[in-house]
């Protein structure tokens, strides 16, 4: 039976009880009305009889026409009362039997009296005696009726209290009935439903906490039972979903692990490759240098020990050999340095290019004291990048500027930053010999030179290294020049952050 049906039954019972209650109350009300009427009747009767009694006394004392008239009226009233239909008041009829008789008797007595008073022809003494007997009869009857009426009053009062008791009992019963219905509804329906609702809540809470394994007890064939079944269905679907989720999570984790493994493997490979490369470069440069030392060494030895036996040509050849091997040494060093730059890890720090530039300019002038070069470094040139690599860059660029201003008397090198722009553009400018912009694309290629070795020494690696360093920082490097009017090298160290 569904809860709805049960509630409907409960309501039905409730309505029945209420209706009964209302019916009872209506009945009680009518009973009370009856009792009230009865009381009123009794009181009226009593009052009327008291009056009659008094009038009877007055009549005996002073039987004036007025009093006789009043007595007759009153007696009529009393007769009306006692002869009232009191069938609706059980018990009252028998009680009124006596008053009825007496009322009739009183009426006859009065009539007799009236006759006697009307008959003035009779003997006064006889009349007086007759009247006296009548009077005493009237008084007696009247008094007896009065006392009876008191009984009637008593009767009606006890009736009333009985009725009142009945009404109270009924009201109590009605209330009891309602309370019983209420309790019955609560215990039979409400509590059970509440308990099951709590069960449902507990189940949902369990599911909410993640317990999807326990099946949900499916209860009876009512609404809550349906709810339980629906919850169970939901649980099964959740379980399914959670299983699927777990599966795909595991797949993700597995592939993540696999990827990480691969990455680790690659990193190990790379690190190993880098180490190998480093070792290779190192040993290559060493193995290449040893014969160089021998070559230049014995050339020098020849020049020193056999200078008398050598003519100019011989000395010249030896000089060339020495120079060539020195150059090879430089090339080896530069190549080693360039390969190191490519492989080195870049750390991003805040680097003060001003300090680096000023320090290097100082070092240069110490190593080359005959030259007087004006070096102008802007203050506060802060850059984000690898300190060692940026140091190498500045040394390269300033070193170049120093070298290519060799023939200028008022050699000037300027290091600074362009006023606006994001990212910041740094520059190194000199007023030296410059280069032909037509060959600008070769400027940063390794071993490519735009001046002959006779004009200016160099391996052509310097700017290639600078370009590598700048590119590894994610920046750009370019140059501008006029022949004999100096050159400017610009560079940035990153893509910028989009704000100007």
């Amino acid at each position, binding site marked *: 039976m569904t809860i709805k049906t049960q509630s409907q039954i409960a309501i039905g019972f409730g309505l029945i009880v209420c209706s009964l209650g209302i019916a009872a109350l209506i009945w009680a009300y009518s009973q009370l009305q009856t009792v009230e009427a009865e009381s009123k009747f009794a009181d009226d009767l009593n009052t009327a009889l008291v009056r009659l009694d008094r009038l009877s006394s007055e009549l005996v004392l002073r039987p004036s026409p007025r009093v006789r008239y009043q007595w007759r009226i009153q007696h009529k009233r009393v007769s009306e009362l006692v002869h009232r239909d009191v069938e609706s008041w059980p018990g009252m009829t028998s009680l009124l039997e006596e008053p009825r008789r007496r009322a009739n008797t009183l009426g006859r007595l009065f009539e007799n009296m009236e006759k006697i008073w009307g008959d003035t022809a009779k003997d006064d003494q006889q009349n007086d005696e007759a009247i006296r007997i009548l009077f005493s009869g009237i008084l007696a009857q009247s008094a007896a009726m009065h006392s009876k009426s008191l009984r009637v009053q008593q009767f009606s009062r006890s009736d009333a209290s009985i009725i009142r008791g009945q009404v109270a009992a009924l009201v109590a019963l009605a209330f009891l009935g309602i309370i019983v219905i209420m309790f019955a509804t609560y215990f039979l329906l409400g509590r059970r439903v509440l308990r099951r609702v709590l069960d449902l809540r507990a189940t949902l809470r369990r599911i909410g906490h993640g317990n999807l394994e326990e099946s949900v007890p499916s209860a009876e064939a009512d609404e809550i039972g349906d709810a339980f079944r629906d919850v169970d269905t939901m649980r099964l679907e959740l379980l399914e979903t959670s299983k699927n989720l777990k599966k795909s999570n595991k797949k993700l984790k597995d592939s993540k692990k696999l990827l990480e493994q691969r990455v680790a493997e690659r990193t190990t490979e790379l690190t190993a490759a880098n180490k190998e490369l480093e070792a290779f470069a190192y040993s290559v440069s*060493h193995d290449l*240098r*040893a*014969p*160089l*030392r*021998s070559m*230049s*060494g*014995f050339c*020098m*030895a020849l020049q*020193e*020990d056999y200078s008398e036996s050598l003519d100019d040509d011989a000395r010249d050849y030896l000089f060339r050999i020495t120079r060539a091997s*020195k150059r090879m*040494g430089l090339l080896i060093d530069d190549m080693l340095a360039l390969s190191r730059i490519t492989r080195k890890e870049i750390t991003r720090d805040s680097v003060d290019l001003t300090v680096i530039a000023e320090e290097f300019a100082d070092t240069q002038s110490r190593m080359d004291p005959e030259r007087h070069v004006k070096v102008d470094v802007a203050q506060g040139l802060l850059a984000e990048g690898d300190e060692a690599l940026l140091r190498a860059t500045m040394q390269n660029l300033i070193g170049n500027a120093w070298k290519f201003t060799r023939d200028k008397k008022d050699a000037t090198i300027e290091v600074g930053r362009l006023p606006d722009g994001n990212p910041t553009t740094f520059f190194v400018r000199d007023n030296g010999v410059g280069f032909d912009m037509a060959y600008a694309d070769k400027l940063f290629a390794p071993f490519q030179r735009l001046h002959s070795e006779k004009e200016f020494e160099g391996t052509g690696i310097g700017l290639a290294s600078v370009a590598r360093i700048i590119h590894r920082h994610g920046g750009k490097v370019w140059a501008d020049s006029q022949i004999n009017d100096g050159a400017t090298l610009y560079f940035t160290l990153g893509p910028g952050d989009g704000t100007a």
Partner: protein
Amino acid sequence: MTDHTVLLVEDNPDDQALILRSLKKNNISNKVVVMNDGVEALEYLFSTGPFEGEERPSPIVILLDISMPRLNGLQVLERVRADPDTKNIPVVILTSSTEEQDIATSYDLGVNSYVPKPVDFEEFTAAVARVGLYWMLTNRVKT
């Protein structure tokens, strides 16, 4: 001092020649015995193998290269320092290696001096001269 011998352990014949020339140019007249690798050097020092039975005083200094075939310089150094007869002989490592590890191991094994061979020949000559002048003329050894 000048009658003490110098033991040069060096496998590269060019470097051998250049070292000898440098010493001569700087008027270091000690006799220089040249061994081509570590095995020969130890046989010479301990009078074994081809040098069986030869009695002689210890060299005034051993100039030792590291990278040599068969036994390398560090292994030679270890053996020299292990023997009571030879452990006090000054050893100068003269090598092209500038590896931190080699320097550390050398000093751990008790080398007296570690001199990298300069790549530039002139500097090489000067370094050898300095080494020679110090260890062969200035320094005193136990007799």
